């Protein structure tokens, strides 16, 4: 059955395009016609030490791709096909794979490791290949070093591929024992030790039980810590990676080891190779992440029922940790701000310092201030930049009270540095720090404002001036302006920005038009700042925002006139279109209601024309932004929007069909809702098409699941808009709702993410029911809904019993109960009275502290009373 594939595989890597293409097609054909033979041939090729390395490696890769894919539906298909193969073929392939682990060629062994893990990922959950782990581990001690290394690597990949709950604890123990022994200093072979250390990183998720056992945990921790001292840099780095992972997975088990870990990490940060030092800093960043999460969740007070208490590791280490991190800040690289991908110890150290500030709050300030004061005016730019960066990093976390005096004193200094400092690097960090000051210490919640009549003019002048600086510095100035505007969000009528509004807008537009605006994200930052300035503007400046409309429209128009562009230029063009559509969207939301609406709507026709042309450009980002803008426009236009429908409809349909770029699909679904509310029954002519698409979307297994709940909500929007005309869709939509309801009623969440999804699905289903009931209310066709009532009440009862719904679902659910009673009235009085929802659930909602739930419940009670009293 197997076939000679060597030549094909070598040809598939040929430099000659025709040869390559031909080989690829033959392989594809082989795969389609005879999957078993195809896979067997590949496995045989991989295992055969007499074959060329290149063909063997590609054989492994093709084999791997025949077992797994990124897209969920494709992956599912591949898994099913593997499972359907006959046992003899599968055994033979498995044997080939295991044999390859002993190959003298390292690359081939590594490829085999990954393929074995993929097969395990499919088979172990099905209780197939039960002997795999046993056979990998049976004689690991007697194996030659290179086989041992490959075996450990395989175990690592296997742990990455397989979920812990399908591996028996006995096997887990054996895997961990083998891995940890491989890491031990007693292991003489560095390749083995490195493979073991990397395998442990993957296997940590399996070690729950072992970390609960003091002796086993001590042993694992000792070996990991010892590995951080290995003479081999790669081993040290891998060992620190394990520590980083342990910091987040087993935070609560670390108290015993923190002193040792601090010493190890401090030594690594100060003395080790940068790749190791970065991991050592990351350990502390991860500890901070954990503590920030815990403190966020429990507000600092450890209640008896919370899972993990805060051990305040950061706080305890503060006096030694902060100096350590401050030292790193002085190790900047020249021009790091110009390199998007840069990541070095100074950046990592500053980032960690920022996390420490969030974890400990006020306490950090006295540890950092002396450093800042000492260095901020030094002649060496490294000192000044480090001091500024330290300052900027600690602005989030400590209280406004603690920071206010310092910030007020620093502000003038910063503005001065922004104007006069000769170093680009210092200016970049200074502008960023100003942005942080405005982000965290400026706004309606801050008692004593840092921006006053006295300094506002100067701040804006300096920022506008800085926007003409190098792109990286100008970008930070735009960011600072963004937060400056945001802080005046709730200011009311007299915004201090009003006198400068025109100048700010013009400066931002000028920045966006700079020739070097595509460097350092400058153009994006300029439009983002413009958006925020518009969002936070007041009625006083509405006329200036209105003047902006034709300007932005003209820019969008210009992007559509482009001649032939290179693909790189086109990409930049599409990005710009996205930014401009985003900007128009913000303006529509700002001006699209009273009293500016009428003046604004004079541009609607032209604007719509531009959006339609943007759709023609077929870029996902621009498409999404234009769609969002149209949703906002529909909301503003109301029934008037009907005139755009004939032309717009095909793009709406196109969006609903876009499974691959699911955000486009999701956004379009939202816009369908906007249009339903704007057009009401005038949407009717388009409903057949829309409903068909929505139903197709729901049945597709290609579409990202996050889009499905909003599609159900959209059913409700359609029903509410067209009322009893929804009749013809009942036969299709109701069974779908019903089966989704059954599924979501008992999807007792395996984890938080699942519970969250289940609740969003329930909410979508319930919103659909509400819309349908309300749409049919007072119609003679109400009785069409009676047959569904029992199931809907049952659904409400069962989600109530599951006790895992969130407030949003609770409110929607009790609303559905009211809608059902209100629309069907006495027809379902008996059914309602039998339901748990009409009693316990209703009572629970009536006594809810959330006033929206309570009000929905009051209303439901009212409707039920009427329904059962008739």
């Amino acid at each position, binding site marked *: 059955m197997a076939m000679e594939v060597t030549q094909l595989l070598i040809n598939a890597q040929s430099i000659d395009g025709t040869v390559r293409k031909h080989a690829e097609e033959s392989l594809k054909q082989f795969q389609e016609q005879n999957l078993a033979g195809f896979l067997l041939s590949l496995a045989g090729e991989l295992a055969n030490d007499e074959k060329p390395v290149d063909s063997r490696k590609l054989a492994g890769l093709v084999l791997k791709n025949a077992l797994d894919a990124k897209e969920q539906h494709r992956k599912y298909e591949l898994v099913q096909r593997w499972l359907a193969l006959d046992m003899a073929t599968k055994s033979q392939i498995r044997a080939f794979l295991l044999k390859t682990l002993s190959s003298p060629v390292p690359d081939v062994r590594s490829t085999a490791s990954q393929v074995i893990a993929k097969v395990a990922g499919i088979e172990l959950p099905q209780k197939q290949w039960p002997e795999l782990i046993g056979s990998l581990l049976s004689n690991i001690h007697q194996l030659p070093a290179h086989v041992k290394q490959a075996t450990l*690597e395989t175990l*690592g*990949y296997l742990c990455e591929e397989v979920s812990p709950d399908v591996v028996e604890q006995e096997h887990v123990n054996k895997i961990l024992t083998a891995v940890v022994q491989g890491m031990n200093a007693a292991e003489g072979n560095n390749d083995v030790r490195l*493979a073991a250390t990397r395998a442990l*990183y*993957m296997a940590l998720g399996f070690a729950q039980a072992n970390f609960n056992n003091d002796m086993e945990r001590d042993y694992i921790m000792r070996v990991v810590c010892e590995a951080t001292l290995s003479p081999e840099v790669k081993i040290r780095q*891998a060992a620190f990676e394990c520590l*980083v992972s342990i910091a987040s997975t087993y935070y609560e088990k670390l108290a015993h080891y923190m002193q040792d870990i601090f010493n190890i990490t401090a030594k690594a940060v100060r003395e080790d190779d940068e*790749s190791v030092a970065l*991991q050592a800093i*990351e350990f502390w*960043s991860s500890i901070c992440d954990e503590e920030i999460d815990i403190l966020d969740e429990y507000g600092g007070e450890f209640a008896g029922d919370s899972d993990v208490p805060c051990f305040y590791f950061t706080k305890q280490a503060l006096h030694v940790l902060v100096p350590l991190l401050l030292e790193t800040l002085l190790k900047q690289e020249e021009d790091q701000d110009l390199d998007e*991908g*840069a990541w070095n110890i100074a*950046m*990592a150290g500053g*980032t960690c310092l920022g996390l420490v500030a969030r974890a400990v709050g006020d306490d950090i300030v006295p540890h950092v201030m002396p450093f800042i004061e000492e260095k901020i005016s030094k002649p060496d730019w490294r000192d000044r930049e480090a001091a500024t960066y330290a300052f900027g990093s600690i602005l989030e976390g400590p209280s406004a009270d603690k920071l206010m005096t310092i910030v007020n004193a620093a502000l003038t200094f910063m503005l001065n540095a922004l104007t006069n400092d000769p170093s680009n690097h210092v200016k970049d*960090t200074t502008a960023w720090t100003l942005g942080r000051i405005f982000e965290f210490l400026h706004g309606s919640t801050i008692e004593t404002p840092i921006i006053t009549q006295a300094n506002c003019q100067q701040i804006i002048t300096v920022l506008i001036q800085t926007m003409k600086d190098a792109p990286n510095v100008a970008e930070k100035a735009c960011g600072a302006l963004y937060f400056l505007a945001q802080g005046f*969000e*709730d200011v*009311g009528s007299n915004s201090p920005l009003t006198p400068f509004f025109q100048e700010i807008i013009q400066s931002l537009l000028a920045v966006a038009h700079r020739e070097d605006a595509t460097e350092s994200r400058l153009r994006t930052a300029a439009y*983002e700042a413009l*958006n925020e300035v518009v969002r936070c503007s007041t009625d006083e400046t509405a006329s200036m925002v209105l003047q902006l409309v034709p300007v932005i429209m003209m820019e969008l128009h210009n992007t559509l006139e482009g001649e032939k562009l290179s693909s790189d230029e086109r990409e930049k063009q599409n990005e710009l279109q*996205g930014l401009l559509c*985003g900007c128009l*969207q*913000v303006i529509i*939301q700002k001006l699209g*209601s*009273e*009293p500016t609406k009428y003046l604004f709507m004079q541009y609607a026709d032209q604007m719509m024309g531009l959006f339609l042309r943007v759709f023609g450009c077929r870029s996902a980002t621009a498409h999404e*932004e234009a769609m969002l803008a149209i*949703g*906002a426009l529909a*909301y503003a236009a*109301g029934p008037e929007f009907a005139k755009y429908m004939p032309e717009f409809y095909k793009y709406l349909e196109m969006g609903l069909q876009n499974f691959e770029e699911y955000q486009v699909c999701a*956004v379009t679904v*939202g816009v369908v*809702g*906007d249009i339903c*509310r704007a057009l009401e*029954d005038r949407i009717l002519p388009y409903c057949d098409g829309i409903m068909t698409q929505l139903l197709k979307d729901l049945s597709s297994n290609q579409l990202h699941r996050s889009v499905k709940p909003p599609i159900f909500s959209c059913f*409700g*929007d359609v029903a*509410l808009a067209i009322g*009893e005309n929804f009749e013809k869709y009942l036969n299709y939509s109701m069974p779908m709702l019903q089966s989704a309801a059954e599924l979501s009623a008992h999807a007792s969440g395996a984890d938080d993410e699942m519970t969250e999804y289940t609740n969003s699905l329930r909410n979508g289903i319930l*919103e659909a029911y*509400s*819309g349908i009931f*309300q749409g049919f*209310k*007072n119609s003679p066709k*109400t009785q069409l809904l009676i047959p569904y009532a029992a199931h809907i009440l049952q659904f409400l009862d069962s989600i109530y019993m599951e006790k895992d719904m969130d407030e949003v679902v609770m409110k929607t659910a009790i*609303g559905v109960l*009211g809608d059902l009673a209100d629309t069907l009235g006495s027809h379902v009085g008996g059914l309602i009275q039998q339901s748990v929802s009409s009693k316990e659930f209703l009572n629970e909602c009536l006594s809810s502290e959330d*006033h*929206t739930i309570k*009000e929905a419940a009051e*209303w439901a009670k*009212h409707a039920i009373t009427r329904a059962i009293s008739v």
Partner: protein
Amino acid sequence: MAPHDLRRPFKRRPISDQQKRRELSLLRQSQNRSDAQQRARNLASSVISLQSSSPDFDPEILSEAVPELDAGSESESSSFDIRQASRLRGPEARKWFARQLMLPEWMIDVPDNLSQDWYVLARPTGKRCFVVSSDGTTVSRVRNGSILHHFPSALPGGARKKGTSGPAQSYSILDCIFHELDQTYYVIDMVCWRGYSLYECTAEFRFFWLQSKLAETGACDPPSFYHKFRFSAVPFYNCNQSGLHSAYTGSLPYVKDGLLFYNKHAHYHTGNTPLVLIWKDERCSQYVIDTDNNGEVPNQQHIVLELQDEGKLVTSDDPPVPFSCLNADFVKQSGLSSGALIRFAIGDGGLNCVDGRFEKADLQYIGVSNRARAFADSYSKIMFQYMARHSPLKIEDLASNISHENQQDKPLEVEMSD
């Protein structure tokens, strides 16, 4: 196995502006959806068909027609609610809103069971208006439907402001009196709250809801940028001796203009209703007897009646009370048409009543009424004004009625226990 990338965002905001736009859109959409649904929940009670809004359209008859929709007699009529109404402009809007207020009858005799079944409150002096907050703005309309103020308020959905609690864009309708002196809207009734209709709720419930909900919103706070006028709930009392006394003599932050009596069990009923009554005397009102355009009390009582076909002159009541007839030639000569509101003076012959019902009147034609007016006078108003000029109903009459009620109760109990 390569080492893992551990780069973290550097000098970057955690959320991109695009993500922010997406989230704001989703927020807007979900608010709009829940508003649309709440609006729909409200329709059953406030539904009014625009198609039938012919000049003599009557809200009461139409709201009674709603149950017929259920029966299937009518299916194509476009449902019409307050939000759609808020899009109406000019005369159409005025006409619609003019029909939405519950209008008290004037108290021409004292109802039974005042102390048990009625609330009393002191009516603030000022313009009666309907205050609608929705879509980030608040509009007040006076009795004839024209706009008094267009302003931001802390009412639900009453201002374009982020971060307000609850479904920010849902709408509310309050029945208010705007008191010029302290520029305050005194709320006398609540019609819709956060999109929930209170039309079909009893006054007892509406007043309770009003007292508990209004303050929560901050609408009672002093004016600010997003809240141009202060709102205040009018205190109400059970109409027993002490309640009546408090309302009549109690000191209040506003200038009183008579007493309003609300039947506790009555729903909010658009148009005239005998279940809300107004009563005035010189002590609690500056405006007991109607004045003319110059603020003077005319020698004769003036009344406004609506001209119907065949020269019939009727009140604004439902059903209308016929008062008199105009000669067909006179109608033709004066160029009057059906529906016109005509002002008359009551001559020395006065009003003649038989058994408490109106029998005939001595009317003297003055001319067509001021165009700002939307309605003819009601029967009770004409009678109250007439009584005020001749034999007014006094506060003592009200008080004695209440004490009489109480005395009546007691012997009844004694008798029963015998």
